[in-house]
């Protein structure tokens, strides 16, 4: 069988006679997610790099145009599958704003709590994967233990470990189950204990510092020019964080710091993420304190399904249920851009509605995709062995990058 490569790398044609062109990926253990880096090497030094993505493209935006608003939710979960809840909440907010829906107090607090809880899991995964590639197996296993505790706990809440489909337009699928908050506190304490071990293993570790300090350095101006957001941008010392700058959900009520780095290298990206986990743990606890009783979904016949009991006993409720399920939610015509501070950076949804029950256009501003657009600038000039730690520190998630 003759399968041609999907994209011709322009390096093949222009490489210097003495240089070697090396393919890293698309299927390489360190390219968790499928991505290809074509690197032109002079000895051990990367002279030029060409980053190809798209191997995981599955037409999310096209699919969204053919699904009702609720049926888009499972697709949204599969963008950044390490923090699916954050994706879902950002998408739901875009639809809710077009509909003019005010969420209930309990829903806002639970969503904020889950955003931060999922952020812990996402950061833990990123740090775990990138240090494992540098050989730190113990730290990797510690962090994966934390991650799995969180995923099992979210499984208890939503019924799935990774792709939760937990958000609903106007609320949430269900309220917190009995005993969930007790277990939450146990996991937070456990996480703190394990994070201390990670700090102990890595912060002053000669090998770790040699591999990450002064590698892939960038200035704030460079980061802005290439569209970096989130922890990657903050590692350069710029405190841009949507939770502070354009607060949404319950963030205006929370007391938290925005950790920043000093030189924007791989070490700073590690450290900023670790500090953000600390902040997130504190924020989750604050949210638990803010929780009040009440419904988790709005009582709005345009979006909320009637009670199951009523569907089986009253004809109006049955018709209402049938209409919402078969036709879907009708969203007034308009356009909106909603962005949240996802664990990777600014996650934006640009939604255009034409007044029907399906999006006319739904575009995702995926932080991973934009980051890959600037990643070659962080690889060029460094050694080929730095490619893997640098790539790991960007936390590229294929599902989100390629959509």
């Amino acid at each position, binding site marked *: *069988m003759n*399968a*041609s490569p*999907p*994209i*011709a790398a*322009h390096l093949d044609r222009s490489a210097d006679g003495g240089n070697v062109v090396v393919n890293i990926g698309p299927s390489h253990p360190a390219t968790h997610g499928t991505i290809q880096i074509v690197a032109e090497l002079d000895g051990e030094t990367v002279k030029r790099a060409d980053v*190809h*993505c*798209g191997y995981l*493209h599955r*037409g999310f*935006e*096209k*699919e969204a*145009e*053919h699904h009702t608003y609720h049926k888009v939710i499972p697709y949204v979960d599969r963008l950044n599958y390490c923090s699916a809840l954050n994706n879902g909440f950002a998408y739901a907010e875009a639809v809710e*704003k077009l509909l003019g829906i005010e969420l209930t107090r309990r829903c806002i607090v639970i969503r904020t709590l889950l955003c931060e809880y999922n952020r812990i899991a996402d950061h833990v995964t990123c740090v775990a994967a990138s240090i494992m590639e540098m050989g730190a197996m113990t730290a990797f296993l510690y962090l994966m233990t934390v991650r799995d505790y969180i995923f099992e706990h979210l499984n208890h809440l939503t019924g799935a470990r990774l792709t939760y489909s937990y958000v609903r337009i106007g609320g949430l699928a269900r309220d917190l189950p009995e005993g969930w908050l007790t277990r939450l506190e146990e996991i937070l304490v456990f996480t703190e204990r394990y994070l201390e071990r990670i700090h102990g293993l890595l912060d002053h570790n000669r090998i770790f510092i040699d591999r990450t300090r002064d590698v892939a350095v960038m200035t704030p*101006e460079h980061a*802005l*020019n*290439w*569209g970096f*957001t989130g922890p990657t941008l903050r590692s350069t010392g*710029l*405190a*841009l964080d949507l939770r*502070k*700058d*354009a607060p949404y959900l319950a963030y205006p009520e929370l007391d938290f710091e*925005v950790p920043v780095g000093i030189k924007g290298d791989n070490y700073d990206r590690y450290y900023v993420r670790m500090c953000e986990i600390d902040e997130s743990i504190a924020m989750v606890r604050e949210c638990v304190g803010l929780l009040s009783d009440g419904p988790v979904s709005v009582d709005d016949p345009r979006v909320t399904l009637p009670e199951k009991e009523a569907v089986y006993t009253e004809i109006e409720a049955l018709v209402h249920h049938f209409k919402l399920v078969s036709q879907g939610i009708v969203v007034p015509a*308009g*356009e*909106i*851009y909603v*962005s949240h501070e996802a664990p990777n950076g*600014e996650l*934006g949804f*640009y939604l*255009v509605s034409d007044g029907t029950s399906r999006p*006319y*256009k739904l*575009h995702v*501003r995926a932080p991973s*995709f*934009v980051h*890959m*657009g*600037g990643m070659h*600038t962080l690889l060029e000039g460094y050694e080929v062995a730095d490619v893997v730690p640098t790539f790991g520190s960007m936390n590229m998630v294929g599902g989100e990058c*390629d*959509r």
Partner: protein
Amino acid sequence: MTERTPLSFGAIERELGPLVERSWQSFAMPVLELRVDNLLPVVAGLRDRFDFALFLDVTAVDYPERSPRFDLVYHFYSRRHHQRIRLKVPVPAERPVVPTLTGHYGSARYMEREVHDMYGIEFAGNADLRPILLYEGFVGHPLRKDYPIEREQPVVPYRAG
């Protein structure tokens, strides 16, 4: 924290008004509609005078019945004002060419490639418009409304039976 200076809609209109066809606010975000020729001066003005240092996003919306057929939609973020702005540039299907923003923002490189893939809009001056989410040899532009969702173009032929 940087200090928050609210950006007045009026200030943008005063500075860039002559270059803009229409402007309004949508969910607290200023929206400027402009002609293709004015894109570069408006972007430069936003970046240099209002500190819109972050080029967030570019995408297109296809209205097959309308002329001009496409709306190119840009989003920018101002570091000083903590505010976003949207630019809308109508682009005709007969000549879908707009100037590239790669001269102003590095991030435009990748994002414009995606729009080129999905809508077939040319970005004059972007030297690298190879496919990015699609592959070489892909026929058509999948996010155009007239591209049927069930059309398949496998790179490797399916196995028989």
